[in-house]
């Protein structure tokens, strides 16, 4: 009885998030423009081979898009006084968080898929192993959307503060993840640090599937993404429950 109610609630919350938050300027700026500008700044005018860096760029797009919706929702709702009402509906903190994750994951999945398909058609890039790419898409969007929800956990009712904090967390993860310097070229301490970023495993999955240059191996990459998803999810539930009344 309770299990279907839990998922019904999560789907309703996800639907509400899609309607309201996809068109918010911070999602557009931090989810779409930011990775595009990063790519342009890094790639343009340097004569780099697109096929070599494309997996990293795709992973970065997926990372930014999937993790850009989550940080916005809770502070926005606390500011607009809708969060308390949401808590009084037949929902739990868990179903609200799952709804936020689903909305973020869907956003990341859809935008990244459009970029993937467009890139394949325009630049004739190799598609590689479609099953690995699909698994990477699914697990990557869910893990990073969960990270986005975890980043919404501070008690602030000011969306701009949370978005700044989320950028502060996400940017270092980009720089240590083997996007700008492929993991195979990193050595020693740099490679050890790269393993701390969840994005590293997604980049490695795409590199392996598209270019055959993966270093870690798809099974380990997928397991690592799953572990990060569970870690971020547990953190989001713990911190959002702890901070539930703050900012109301």
């Amino acid at each position, binding site marked *: 009885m*309770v299990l279907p109610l839990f998922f019904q609630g999560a789907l*309703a919350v996800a639907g*509400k998030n899609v309607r309201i938050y996809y068109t918010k300027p911070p999602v557009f700026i931090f989810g779409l423009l930011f990775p595009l500008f990063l790519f342009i700044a890094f790639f343009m005018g340097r004569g780099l081979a697109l096929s070599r860096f494309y997996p990293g760029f795709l992973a970065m797009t997926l990372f930014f898009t999937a993790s850009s919706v989550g940080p916005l929702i809770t502070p926005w709702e606390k500011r*607009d006084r809708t969060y*308390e009402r949401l*808590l*009084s*509906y037949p929902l*739990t903190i868990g179903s609200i968080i799952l709804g936020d994750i689903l909305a973020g994951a869907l956003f990341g999945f859809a935008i990244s898929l459009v970029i993937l398909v467009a890139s394949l058609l325009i630049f004739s890039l190799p598609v590689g192993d479609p099953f690995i790419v699909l698994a990477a898409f699914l697990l990557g969007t869910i893990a990073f959307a969960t990270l986005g929800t975890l980043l919404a956990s501070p008690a602030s009712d000011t969306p701009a503060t949370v978005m700044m904090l989320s950028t502060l967390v996400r940017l270092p993860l980009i720089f240590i993840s083997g996007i700008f310097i492929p993991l195979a070229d990193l050595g020693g301490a740099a490679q050890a640090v790269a393993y701390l970023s969840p994005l590293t495993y997604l980049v490695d999955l795409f590199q392996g599937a598209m270019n055959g240059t993966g270093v870690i191996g798809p099974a380990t990459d997928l397991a690592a993404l799953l572990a990060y998803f569970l870690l971020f999810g547990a953190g989001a539930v713990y911190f959002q429950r702890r901070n539930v*009344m703050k900012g109301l």
Partner: protein
Amino acid sequence: MPAIEAHHLTRRFGSITAVDDLTLTVEEGEIFGFLGPNGAGKTTTIRLLTGVLTPDTGTIRIAGIDLRTDPLPAKRCMGIIPENSAVYSDLTAIQNLTLAGRLYGLPAADRNARARSLLADLGLADRADEKVRTFSKGMKQRVSIGCAIIHEPAVLFLDEPTSGLDVQSRRLVTGMIRRMHDQGSTVFLTTHNIDEANTLCTRIGIINRGILAATDRPEILKQTFDTTQSIEISFAREIDPSVFSHPNVLRIDQRGDKLRIVTDDPDRAVKYLAAWADREGVRIASLNTLGPSLEEAFLAITGES
């Protein structure tokens, strides 16, 4: 079966005990008014009863369902109208109502028709497809009411539902409360408006410093806690209240062009006032004697007189 049962609820925030061992039962079909001064624990209590907060100790049952062990079925029995309308301004009125219907588990086929019908009842049929951000406060509150009653809840919680509304919206809200009550819903209402509580509620609870200080029917509370009576008098010209001095005149409140004189002996006070007016040559425009008031009872219970 009681609609709301709370047993020994306690909730602390750090060293502050916001709700202290509160036990309360609201029977099915009642309109229960919950009054208290600012910071008395009203909002914390309503948050506990609606499942927004969990108590440190104590149990809550809504329509017989334990809120702690079965929160989702228990919450489906409730409708909540918060103080600050709390509707999504980026959604249209109809989208807000259908979202609420979906969250309360209404079948998709019923949601839209029920939402349209409710919006018509609430006087918003022609604004149904407009975003709520363009609405006035009263209109947002009507959307909020629609969200709370779309599933025809067994128990309706209202937190200051008429606070800051104009006369039309206030009447519409109180009319809707009465209608929901007539249709069988139990109503739990917090308000600062004592007249509203007096005219709407079948029973009243007064909370003070986190403790439920009194619970009874409004008339019983008045008779028990307000042993004084009042005279409301208006003169044809403005009179300084300080000119009145009589052992049976306990207190004088200026209320617009009227003076409300609290007395323990209306007969002597009326005779004194009439004699004073006659002596000073001042015409009395109106004079009424009033029985014990809920406001005086509230002040006596909360010790704020």
